[in-house]
């Protein structure tokens, strides 16, 4: 049984009233949902709230879900839209104390050494526009075709290809620039 069919069975059970099955669905997709939100928001707390909101919205909209479609494509579109809404709110926040605290915490904890790769790549992605960050995130999850990425983000496939190319090139150029002295250790 493939993942898509597993999702459909769980959805059927939830719709028949067995809400506990929704937990299985959450646990199955929570990491990807959180990852998409995090790449857009670049803040742990916001990413967690946005992805949790997306799950709850999906739960209430489950009866509208077209069974012919793939649950993940439908659901990650909700995650994408929810995270973009959070991003708009984030821009309006004058102080971003949580972000500062996160960064300070990482520095003082001395975890940067082992997390350098993650840090620099995430910083690079966070510099991208939300749609570009999502496109590159979904592409590297290796779970979605370009058609599915197009459905999730609501963009045309050609636009996805262009965004993907630009984002990869920008990240490569940025990392060359920033990590000129650290490149060897970063890539092992």
């Amino acid at each position, binding site marked *: 049984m493939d993942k898509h069919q597993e999702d459909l069975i769980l959805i059927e059970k939830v719709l028949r009233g067995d809400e506990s099955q929704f937990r299985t669905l959450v646990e199955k997709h929570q990491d*990807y*949902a959180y990852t998409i939100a995090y790449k857009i928001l670049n803040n742990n707390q916001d*990413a967690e709230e946005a992805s949790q*909101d997306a799950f709850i919205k999906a739960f209430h909209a489950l009866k509208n879900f077209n069974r012919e479609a793939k649950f993940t494509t439908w659901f990650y579109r909700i995650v994408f839209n929810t995270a973009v809404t959070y991003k708009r709110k984030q821009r309006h926040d004058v102080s971003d104390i949580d972000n500062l605290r996160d960064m300070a915490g990482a520095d003082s904890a001395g975890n940067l050494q082992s997390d350098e790769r993650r840090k620099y790549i995430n910083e690079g992605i966070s510099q991208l526009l939300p749609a570009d960050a999502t496109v590159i995130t979904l592409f590297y999850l290796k779970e979605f075709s370009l058609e599915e990425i197009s459905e999730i983000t609501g963009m045309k496939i050609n636009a996805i290809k262009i965004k993907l190319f630009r984002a*990869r090139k920008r990240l*490569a150029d940025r990392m060359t620039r920033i990590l000129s002295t650290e490149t060897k250790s970063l890539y092992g």
Partner: protein
Amino acid sequence: MRQITDKELLDYLDGLLSPEDSTEIEEVLKKDGELKERYLHLQRVDKALEAVNTEEAAFDFSDKVMANLHDPRYHKVSLLSIFNQKNLMMVGGILVGIMIGIYIISTGLAPSVLESVSLDSITIQDQSLNLKPIWDSLTGGMFIKIFFLFDLLLALFLLDRAVLKPMFRRRTQAYSL
């Protein structure tokens, strides 16, 4: 030697090129050290992106989702959210327009509003319909009727733009993705 672009290198990396094009790129990479360096850099970034891509959600993530599953915020769109400052001003404008209309009618300022339209202005000759110009029969009452019709249409338009459309848009975004 042909100039190879970053796009071609990335396509080669993704395995999107035809066997002929791939062979051509490989030949150029063997001869051009600078291009090979660029290719290796793109490849390393690609691997780095793959390696760090998945974030791990908090251990109590699903507990929090399940605990908030029936949070009333997600059940319905709050009516209060519809009435923001801009929308309140529009709705207020509609109400003022309606109240002025009621006042005009109730105080007899427009006694001719209920008058019927005079059929004298319509004459039929030789099976063809001949209407006199409308301004010939435009009375004060007719003017007020047109004014109220316009007011009603404007009120419906504002109601749609200020209340109904935002409400359905929110609902669509929230539940029907």
